[in-house]
C-alpha cells in the first residue's frame, strides 16, 4: 500500500474537510496554544522561584515571598560558590566522569540490547529476566557491600570509583533499547545476514541509524543520571577535590543553617548544561525515520 494510490482520494477528502472546518481549525489552533501556555506555566513557575532565589542574598530569600523578583539581583552567590567553594572544579569533575559514564553505558547497553532483541542463544530469556530483576532491588542497601568491594580493591577516592558501576552498561538502558529494537522487523537482520554481514555491521550500519530516537534518549538519560547522582559519589570519594556537583551543593549546608542562596545558585549552575544538552538533542527524539518505510 503505497502513498501514491491513496493520494488521489485523500486529496479530495482533504479538500472537503478543509473547507468545512476552517473555522474549526483556528479554534483548534487557539486551543493548542492555550494548552501549551498552561503546560509551560505549570512546569516553569517553580523554576522561576528558584532562579529568583539564586540571585538574592539569604536574608531576602527568607524575609520576602519567594515570588518577588530579586531587587536588585546580586551575583554574590555565584561568586561565593566559585571562589570560596571551588565549584569550578566540581563542574570539571562531574563533566569528566559523566562523559565517560555515558559513552560506555550507551555503547555497551546497546550491544546487550541488540543481543537480547535480535540474536538467539541459549538462556537468552532467563538472562534477560535476571537483568530486569536487578532493577527491582532498592539500591540503597547494595551501596554498602559495593562500597566494601571497592575499598578492598583500593579504588576508593578515584574517578574510577565514581563511574565504574555504571560504565559497562546497565539493565535499565538495555531494557529500554531492547524494546525499541524488537519493533525492527526480523527480515531486516535476516536479509543482511544472508548477504554476509557480520552482526557488528548489522548493528552499527543498519540498526543504529534507524534507532536514533531511542539511542539519543538513552544517552540523555545516562548523562542526566551521572550528572545528578548523589549517594554513590558521596560515599566513594573522600577529598573535597574530587567532589561532584551534587556533593558540592550538599556541602553548602552547615548542620543548622541551610544556605539556600548558595544551594539554589549551585543548582542553577548545574542545571544549565543539562538544558543546553537537552535542547540540542531533543529534536532527534521527535523527528526520525519512520520504520514504516521498510517494505513489508
Amino acid at each position: 500500500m503505497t502513498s501514491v494510490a491513496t493520494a488521489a482520494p485523500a486529496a479530495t477528502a482533504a479538500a472537503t474537510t478543509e473547507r468545512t472546518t476552517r473555522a474549526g481549525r483556528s479554534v483548534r489552533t487557539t486551543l493548542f496554544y492555550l494548552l501549551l501556555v498552561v503546560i509551560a506555566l505549570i512546569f516553569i513557575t517553580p523554576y522561576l522561584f528558584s532562579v529568583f532565589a539564586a540571585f538574592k542574598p539569604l536574608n531576602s530569600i527568607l524575609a520576602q515571598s519567594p515570588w518577588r523578583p530579586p531587587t536588585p539581583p546580586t551575583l554574590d552567590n555565584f561568586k561565593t560558590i566559585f571562589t570560596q567553594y571551588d565549584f569550578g572544579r566540581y563542574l570539571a569533575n562531574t563533566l569528566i566522569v559523566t562523559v565517560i559514564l555515558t559513552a560506555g553505558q550507551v555503547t555497551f547497553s546497546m550491544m546487550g540490547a541488540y543481543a537480547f532483541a535480535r540474536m538467539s542463544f541459549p538462556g537468552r530469556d532467563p538472562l534477560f529476566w535476571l537483568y530486569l530483576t536487578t532493577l527491582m532491588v532498592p539500591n540503597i542497601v547494595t551501596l554498602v557491600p559495593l562500597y566494601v568491594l571497592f575499598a578492598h580493591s583500593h579504588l576508593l577516592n578515584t574517578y574510577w570509583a565514581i563511574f565504574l558501576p555504571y560504565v559497562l552498561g546497565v539493565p535499565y538502558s538495555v531494557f529500554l533499547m531492547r524494546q525499541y529494537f524488537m519493533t525492527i522487523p526480523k527480515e531486516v537482520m535476516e536479509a543482511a545476514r544472508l548477504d554476509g554481514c557480520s552482526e557488528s555491521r548489522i548493528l552499527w550500519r543498519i540498526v543504529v541509524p534507524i534507532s536514533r530516537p531511542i539511542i539519543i534518549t538513552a544517552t540523555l538519560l545516562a548523562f542526566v543520571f551521572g550528572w545528578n547522582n548523589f549517594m554513590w559519589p558521596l560515599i566513594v570519594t573522600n577529598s573535597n577535590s574530587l567532589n561532584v556537583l551534587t556533593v558540592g551543593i550538599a556541602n553548602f549546608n552547615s548542620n543548622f543553617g541551610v544556605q539556600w542562596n548558595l544551594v539554589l545558585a549551585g543548582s542553577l549552575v548545574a542545571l544549565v548544561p543539562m538544558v543546553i544538552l537537552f535542547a540540542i538533542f531533543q529534536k532527534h527524539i521527535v523527528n526520525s525515520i519512520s520504520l514504516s518505510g521498510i517494505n513489508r
Partner: protein
Amino acid sequence: MIIGAALMLLSGCAGWGFSSPGGGKTVTLTYALWDPHEQVGYQQSINEFEKLHPDIKVDIENIPYGSYEQKITAEFITGGAPDLFWVNTPWLGTFIKDGILTDLTPLIKASHVDMSQYYPQLVAMHSRNGKIYGLPKDWDTIALYYNKAYLNKLHLTVPDNLSWNADGTGSFVTFLKEATTDTSGHNALSPQFNPSKIATYALAVNNDPQGGWGNYVAEVGGKVIPYPYASYASLTTPQMNVGMSFLAKTLTDAHVIVPGTLSGPNANGANLQQMFSQGQVAMWEQGDWNTLSVKSSVTFPVGVATLPIGPNGRVSVFNGLIDGLNSHTRYPRQAWELEQWLGSPRSQAILGSGGYVWPAIKSLDPLFLQYWKKQGIDMSAFLTEAHGQVVNFPVSPGIGDALTEIVNDLGPAWLGTEPVSTALQTAQNDANYILRTS
C-alpha cells in the same frame, strides 16, 4: 579550548589514582568536619599549628552533616577514616562502644593536660568508666532569640525571670500572651483577640530534644534516658508528660506558640527560620550555633533572652563536640599533637575570638561574647545558662537513631491528632527497641 580540556584532565591526575611520591618525613593528617562557617576558623587555627609543627600537614575534609556519621563509619571499616574528626553526642556512645575512638587518658596523663580548664560537665559527657575520649573544645546552650523591633513596637522588654508552673500558670504565659498579636493588632490577653488570624506568635519551640522540648522537660525533672548509657528510655514518667504537655497542649491551646502544623514536618521546626525572618515569631528558641544564620537571615536587630524558669529552676540542655582520635590512625603521635593543639587555649582563643564557637575552656568565654557584642548581638544569656543548671545531652549507643524515632512518634502530639501520653508511650516502645539492640 583543547588545551584547557587537557589541563583540566591533567589536573585531575590525582583523581585517577596516580599518587605522587611522598616527600621526606612530612606526615599529612586528615581532619574531618561538617560546618563550612566554622571551617574558616579552624583553618586559621590549623595554619598556626602547621607553623609550630613543620613536619605535620593537615588536610581538612568537609563532610555534609546529613551523611557525616555514615561516612566516617564506612571509612573506618575500610581503614580510611580521617585521623581526627568531629564527634557529636548523638553518635558518641556508638563510636565509643564500637572502639572507633582512642582512649586519651594515658596520653593526657603523659602530656600533663590540665583537664580542670574545661567545663566539668563536658569532661563528664565524654568520659566512660574513667576513660576520656576527646578534649572538649566547644559548648552550646539553648536560649531565646527575639525580634527587638517587634517587641519595641509593642513597648515590651523581655523580663529577666519569667517563670512557668506545671498547671500552666505563671508570668511566662502572661508575657507570651502580651507578645502574641493578631492581624488587627490585638494581643492574646484582649477579648477581641482572633486566634484564627494570628500575625505574630510570641514563641516558637520545635519538636527537638535539644533545641526544643528538651529544656522544658528538664525543668520539670524529666529525662529522655534515666542515666548515661542506659539501654532503655524514660519517656513515660509524669515529669515528661507535664513538660511536653505544657508546650504541645497548654501553650498551643493558648495560641501563643507556633502550632506544630506550621513549624515543619512532624513539627521539627524546619519552617521557623523563615517565619522568624518574616516577623511571624517574636521569640525563637534555638541553640547558639544558629547565631550566624540568624544574623545573616534577618533584617531587624536581634536580642537573646534566657529560658524561662520552670518548677525545678532554669535548666538548659548542654552539648559540646570533641575531636575524636581515630583508633586506627597510622600516625598516633602526630594525631595526638593535633588533638592537644585543638584542645589548647591558643587554638580555642582563635576560634572564640573569631566568634565561631564558645570555647570549652571556661576562661576564654569572654572572647566569644566580645566578638558578638561588636556584631550587635548580646550573647550573655547563653553564658548565664552555662554557668547555671545544665543537663547534658543524652549519651548512649544508638541514642541518635532513638531520638529520631522519638521525634517522629511525638509528631502527632504536636499536630494535635494524638494525646501526649499516647505519643510518649509509642516513643518509649520504639526507643526501647533501638537502645536495647544498639
